[in-house]
Every structure is written in structure tokens, then in C-alpha cells.
């Protein structure tokens, strides 16, 4: 199949950047979206140009590295998948495809479609963990956890930290990401001792990174490749209200 690509090209963080047009010729329909970009890149390199840079690693939908938007939607319109799981058979011959980086002030572009998502790491560092020194844990079965609670915790823990939620949000809010991490840990008995501290610290870090806030559009939920529910945002709001009330009055 033949396609027209409109790709964001930006040499480095301080470059202005612009959309450039490429013809993607004779792309096999069985190819994945990133393989299509590989083919285009191979042609660009052979033609003496510099390839389109994009983040990718596992190419099986779990590492969370791939990060571009396809026709304005992070990871494409298809539900519950990452960019690397998009296949060309979903497109029609002659289609024009817009490929742009994830947008958000907290996700500065590094080059082309590659963005810096280290803000997420700093949010996790602020409180997205349970402080347990290696070797100090008691027996794993000493604390039973109801199955549905463990399952809910898992649902939130399935987050791959890709940042699609931020990219899809018109406010570039990281609430789904932060909510998922907080819910994963706050739902477990092991996470209780640090619950309030965790929520306050993560939200403060999130704000200082320059993410916007949630205006309840649920675009994040719609594009999340792991289909994490906006329930985690609701829970984060509640946990934050409780934690800040305690901070003020207790």
C-alpha cells in the first residue's frame, strides 16, 4: 500500500520543528506501524537524509516506550493497544497519516517524535513506592488480601507509564498516571502506612512538573493502552481530600 505521512520533524529540543511530508511506498499490509516507519527510515537513510526518530523498544505493548500520536490520537484510535501494536492493515491505500509527538509542557520534545517523560520518574520517586528494605519482609502469606482488592490493585498497576493519558488530555494532565500508581499501592494493606504521605507528595510533584489538572473529559481513559479506568482519578481526589484534611487538622 502507498501512504502519505505528515510527520513532525524537530532536530533538537530548541529547534522550532515543523510538519514534513513523506511518501511511504509499497508498504506491506502485514507490517506493523513502526515497521512501516522502519521502511520509510531505511529509504530516507539511503537517500542521504536523517531518519525519523521515534521511541520504541519491546514492540509488544508492555514497555511503554513508544509514544507518538497517529492522526492526533496517542497510540491510534484503536482501543487498548500501544503504537507498536498498530498494524497497517487498519489503514487504507492512499491514506494520509499525521504523526506527531506526545504534547505537553512536562514532556518536552527531544527530537522528532521522541519526548522526555522523566517527569513520571520524578513523580514515582516522590512517593510511588512502599518503603520496605530488602530482606525485612515477613512471609508473603502472612497477610491475606481479598482477591477482588488484589485484582483492583492489579488493574491500576497495569499502567506502563507511556504518557498517552497526558498526550490525549487537552490540559496535559497526569492524573490518570498518578491516580493509577496511587491506587495500585493505596488499595493494598502494605501501602497503608504511607498512604497520606504518598498522595500528598505525588500530587505536589505532579503540579510542580507543570502538568495541567483534570477537567473530567475522560480522554485519558479512552486512549490508555492498558484501559485503566478514570476511577483511579476519583480515588486519588478522595485520598487527597482525606490526606490534606488530616494534614491540616491532625
Amino acid at each position, binding site marked *: 500500500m502507498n501512504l502519505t505521512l505528515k510527520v513532525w520533524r524537530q532536530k533538537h529540543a530548541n529547534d522550532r520543528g515543523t510538519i514534513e511530508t513523506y511518501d511511504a511506498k509499497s508498504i*506491506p499490509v*502485514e*507490517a*506493523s506501524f*513502526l515497521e512501516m516507519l*522502519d*521502511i520509510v527510515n*531505511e529509504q530516507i*537513510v*539511503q537517500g*542521504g537524509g*536523517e*531518519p525519523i*526518530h521515534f521511541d*520504541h*523498544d*519491546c*514492540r*509488544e505493548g*508492555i*514497555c511503554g*516506550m513508544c509514544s507518538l500520536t497517529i492522526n492526533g490520537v496517542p497510540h491510534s484510535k484503536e482501543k487498548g493497544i500501544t503504537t507498536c*501494536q498498530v*498494524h497497517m*492493515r487498519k489503514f487504507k491505500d492512499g491514506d494520509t497519516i499525521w504523526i506527531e509527538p506526545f504534547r505537553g509542557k512536562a514532556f518536552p520534545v*527531544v*527530537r522528532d517524535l521522541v519526548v522526555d*517523560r*522523566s517527569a*513520571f*520518574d520524578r513523580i*514515582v*520517586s*516522590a512517593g510511588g*513506592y*512502599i*518503603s*520496605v*528494605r*530488602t*530482606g525485612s*519482609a515477613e512471609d*508473603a*502469606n502472612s*497477610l*491475606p*488480601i*481479598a*482477591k477482588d482488592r*488484589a*485484582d483492583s*490493585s*492489579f488493574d491500576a*498497576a*497495569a499502567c*506502563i*507509564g507511556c504518557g498517552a493519558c497526558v498526550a490525549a488530555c487537552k490540559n496535559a494532565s497526569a492524573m490518570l498516571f498518578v491516580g493509577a500508581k496511587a491506587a495500585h499501592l493505596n488499595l*493494598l494493606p*502494605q*501501602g497503608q502506612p504511607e498512604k497520606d504521605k504518598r498522595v500528598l507528595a505525588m500530587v505536589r510533584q505532579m503540579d510542580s512538573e507543570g502538568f495541567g489538572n483534570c477537567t473530567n473529559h475522560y480522554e485519558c481513559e479512552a486512549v490508555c493502552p492498558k484501559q485503566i479506568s478514570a476511577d483511579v482519578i476519583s480515588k486519588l481526589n478522595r485520598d487527597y481530600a482525606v490526606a490534606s484534611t488530616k494534614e491540616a487538622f491532625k
Partner: protein
Amino acid sequence: MAANGSQKETLNSSVPDGPIAEKWTNHKNNSKLINPANKRKYSIIVVGSGLAGGAAAATLSELGYQVKCFCYQDSPRRAHSIAAQGGINAAKNYQNDGDSIYRLFYDTVKGGDFRSREANVHRLAEVSGNIIDQCVAQGVPFAREYGGLLDNRSFGGAQVSRTFYARGQTGQQLLIGAYQALSKEVAKGGVEMHSRTEMMDLVVVDGHAKGIIVRDMVTGEITRHAADTVVLATGGYGNVFFLSTNAMGCNVMAAYRAHKRGAYMANPCYTQIHPTCIPVSGDYQSKLTLMSESLRNDGRIWVPKSAEDAAAIRSGEKTAADIPEEDRDYYLERKYPSFGNLAPRDISSRSAKEVCDEGRGVASTGLGVFLDFRDAIERLGEDTIRARYGNLFQMYEKIQGSNPYKEPMMIYPAVHYTMGGLWVDYNLMSNLPGLHVLGEANFSDHGANRLGASALMQGLADGYFVIPATLPNYLANQEPGSVTTENEAFAEAEKAVTDRIDKLLSIQGERTVDSFHRELGLLVWDKCGMSRDKAGLEEALEKIPKIREEFWKNVRIPGTGEGLNAELEKAGRVADFLEFGELMCRDALNREESCGGHFREEYQFTEKDDAVISGYTNPGEAKRRDEEFSYVAAWEYTGDDSPPNLHKEELIFENVKQSVRSYK
């Protein structure tokens, strides 16, 4: 061609004395300790942030050491440990089904086809339980029963249920646990994290590993980092085959650079091929996707009996449904009637290759066999099959665009894990003092074949429990901070790195990096893949240097060394694969036996063997030669133009009797 240069002294593995069950305890009791006030004076470099590296960096920082951790991804949370699906083994015996540390130890040694070091494997089994405790305390949401206790499943190579799991994302959950522990230490200032940073060389000062040279992948800046010891946890080398289930970025550069600086590379020919992956569909393909092995519980594997039918399917003239029952060859059921479609990984992978080599493959490339659920759907109904495999079927449909409920799946084996790696002693220290190697990057625990759910166990055991206990044995004898980046060894290594980059950028030839990688991958897959023979390996050993030579003359890398340059990154990695691939073939040629993931066609059971006559095993099964090859082959780099030296570590089995694996 001679497989090796001169043979040197037997390697000292520093395995402690005493009965196997007491070795680890004794060793810890006799290991050196560093008092808390002194720990903070020592600095440690950890390269890699997966299960082994992440766990090690977090734990060493908790203990008070100053840790610098490096990873090439944009975040430590993305290391490829994340992709492990199945689970993690631990000898907890929560199911009361008779499991024990000894049984896990025994199963792992046997599963490794008696090519691993007993003492290391026993230690692995000993700490396995602690791993589960640690992970649960960190908040890893393992699957649970309704009573609230942890659930287990059974996995290949074991008769007990000892595998802990978190849906099909166990690796992800464990990695996030380690990543969170690491993040906590980053916040406390104990770990300095460098992501998007690639290790380009190891710095050796007076025979000790004392630092690394890295490239900041965003700015292109080359920097020096010195420490009192270096820990490599950089994963396996499966991407030497170009197509594998590894992540695109997985590479052998760090390990291979260490090898070139004096560390021995052990058993590089031990590679694991996973039988149920989605077949290659064309030469644009960038990687292979693994489908869970559990599919083989209900799917039947077959190809047409005749090559004509297979050709008709390939060309689209016929479909699977057009082949009548009597013309189908359910070859696993035929050859291994008692195990059938559940034959072990290496056996079923090789059988798939055999039928495809006979021209009976069904995928458009000729490399693929059917995995058919027709009978299971008839027997159990579509709903039951959907409940069991729904998500896998969905994943398959997304990638292949065909509906497995209606048409049989197509599968083919793919490279998945590498058991070989840098040689380490019982302390996980390489022959190069000060260099420690953890996880898939070392060779120690899986022998010639790894059992399912053991990779996660090993990574975390090494990172959380082994290295924190064994590292002081080296560090206590070192003056903290004695080496700085001012040392001339750093200048020399940095120059070597920048020279290499300049050289790569100056070639400006005609071919892309990927085209070389693909060429190398096809060659080693063909000659050193699922089955190997002397002639093929010798052919590969002749061809690889030619590809390498052309690479250094004709590769085209656009752009400069400054800033993000993906082609330059790939080129450095492929350049090392081009050398490493040769070493792998050399090791495969040297090992004149078949064991685990290494199958030499010359060494298989035939009708004349006693074990076949007695009915214990089948003709065509792997034949080990314990008398001659019960050793670890550790290769020493001697120069670009001279063959490597072979060092042997004899494997002594005091607790498990070496026997023939049989699956009849």
C-alpha cells in the same frame, strides 16, 4: 578450522565447601562485612536497570553504598524484564504438594541438562522464597485465591505448582516493584540514575574493573565514571539473531566490551528457542512476538503430509480447512505419543524446523506450522476456549489479522533467552576482579536450557539477595575511591570510544545498519539456531568476518555524534554483534555434543543406542557427552586477529546424578 586456541588452567569458581544445603549460609557467615560508616565511602556502578540491575542498585543503596545506575531506555521501568509473561518460581510449598528447596534445585539442574553449577542453583532455590516475600511487601499484586492467599500455577519441567504470577504480566509487576524500590533510593540520594545513557566501554585499572565510559544518548556527550566496582546487569544477547522476542534495544555491547577488556564469555552457544511465536511474515519484520506456551494445552500442532499441499496453502490456493484429516501430520503427537503437543520447548522447536525444512511449512515464507483449535472448540465449545485464551487469541488477531477461532493459528519458534553470558564465580564476580555480572548477562544458573518462570527468579535473586551479600568480599580489600577518572586508563578508554564513533561516522557507505544486522541474523539463525552442525558452523565462521569487514567499509550512518542519533546507537551494537556472533559459532563448534538449547545434528540418539533400544528415549533426541563436555566453556579474548582462548570450568555433580532427559 581449529575451534580454539590453547587451553588454559581450570577456572576457580570459589564455591564454598560443605554440604550443598549449607554452602550459602556458610559462605555468608564467612564473607567479609563492611561497617555502615564505611559503606558510604564505596561507590558502585550498576549498568542495566531490569530485575537484576534495578534490584541490585536499590538494595546496595539501602545498605548505604553510593550507587550510579545506567540504562539505555528513557526510564529504568522499561527494561525488557518487563515482557516476561508467565511467572516466577519459588520453593514456598504453599500448595502443600511436596515442593522443597531441593526439588526446585533438582528440577532446575535437570532442566538445564546438567550444564549448570550446582552450588549456584541451590542458592537460587534457597533465596527464591525470600523474593516472593520481598515482592509482596513492595506491593506486587500477585494473583490470589478467594481466601486471600497467594495463588500458584504449574509450569513446564516441574510436577509441583510453584509458580507465582500476576496475570500474564508477571515480569512487568516485578520490574515495577524493583523500579519503585529504585525510585525510592533515587529520591533519598543513594542512587544517581542515568537513563538514556549507554555504556560504551569498561575501564580496567591495574587489572581491576574500576569504571565505565558512557554516551549520553540525548546530547551525545561521552563521559567517564569511576567506582570501586562495576556491576553489569545488561541482559542477554538474543538480538544477535536480528529477529528475536527481545526488545529492539537489547544488545551485547556492555558484556562484549567487558569481554574485550578481559572478562571471559561463557557458553555463548546456549540459546533458548521458544516454540510458540508468531511466524515471520516478511523481510521488513523487526521483531517476533511470543505467544504463551499454555496454548499448547489445547491446540494441536500439524502440517500437511505432502509438500504439495503445503505449497498450495502457502500460495493461497488452499486453506487449512481444505486439507482432509488423513492428509494432516500431527507430528508431535506422532513422534512423542505420551507428551504430544506438550513436548518440551527444545524438542517442539526442532520438530517444527524439521517439517519446514522438508518443505511442509505453511506460512507464506515457508516457516510456520499450524496450531489448531478446531478440535478443542468442538470438544469444549468456543466459550471455554475464549475464557482460557481469549486475550491471546485477540493479540494474535491484531498482529496476524486472522481469526484463530475460525482458522488455525500459525506459529514458529523464535529466539527468546540466552543461557550463556559472562563467566562468574560463586560471588557473581567475573575472572576480571571488580567486575560483577548479574541476571541474564551471566551464565551461571540455567545451564544449557532454562525452565519457564526461572529467569525472573534468577534476576531478582542476584539483585536483591546474592550481590549485596557477596560484593563486600571484593570491596573490603579495596581502598574506597582509590581510582578516579583522572587515571590514564580512563583517557585511553574514552579515546577508544570516540575513535570508534568517529570511525563509524566517517565510513558513509551504501548500506544501512539494519541491513547488516539482518544479514548476520539470518546467517546465525540458519547455522547456529535451532540445530547446528560442523559444516554449517564452519561456514558461518567463514562468512561472519566477511560481513564484518563489509560493515566497516560500507555502512552508512547519517548525522553526527552529537545529539540523539538512533542509527549510530544501532551501529555500535551491531558492530559488537558481528564479533560476538563469531564467538557464539566458535563455541557451538567446540561443543561436540547436544545439550539443552544447543543441538548438534551429529550428536543425537539413533536406533543403535541402548537408550533407544530400551525404549527410554527416541531416536533424534539430544545426546550429551558428559565425559568430554561436562564443563563450562569460558572464552578469553586475545585480540581481533587471534582466536580466543578456551578456559574450562569442570562441572561436578555431587547432588544430582547426570541422566538422559526423556519425554516419552
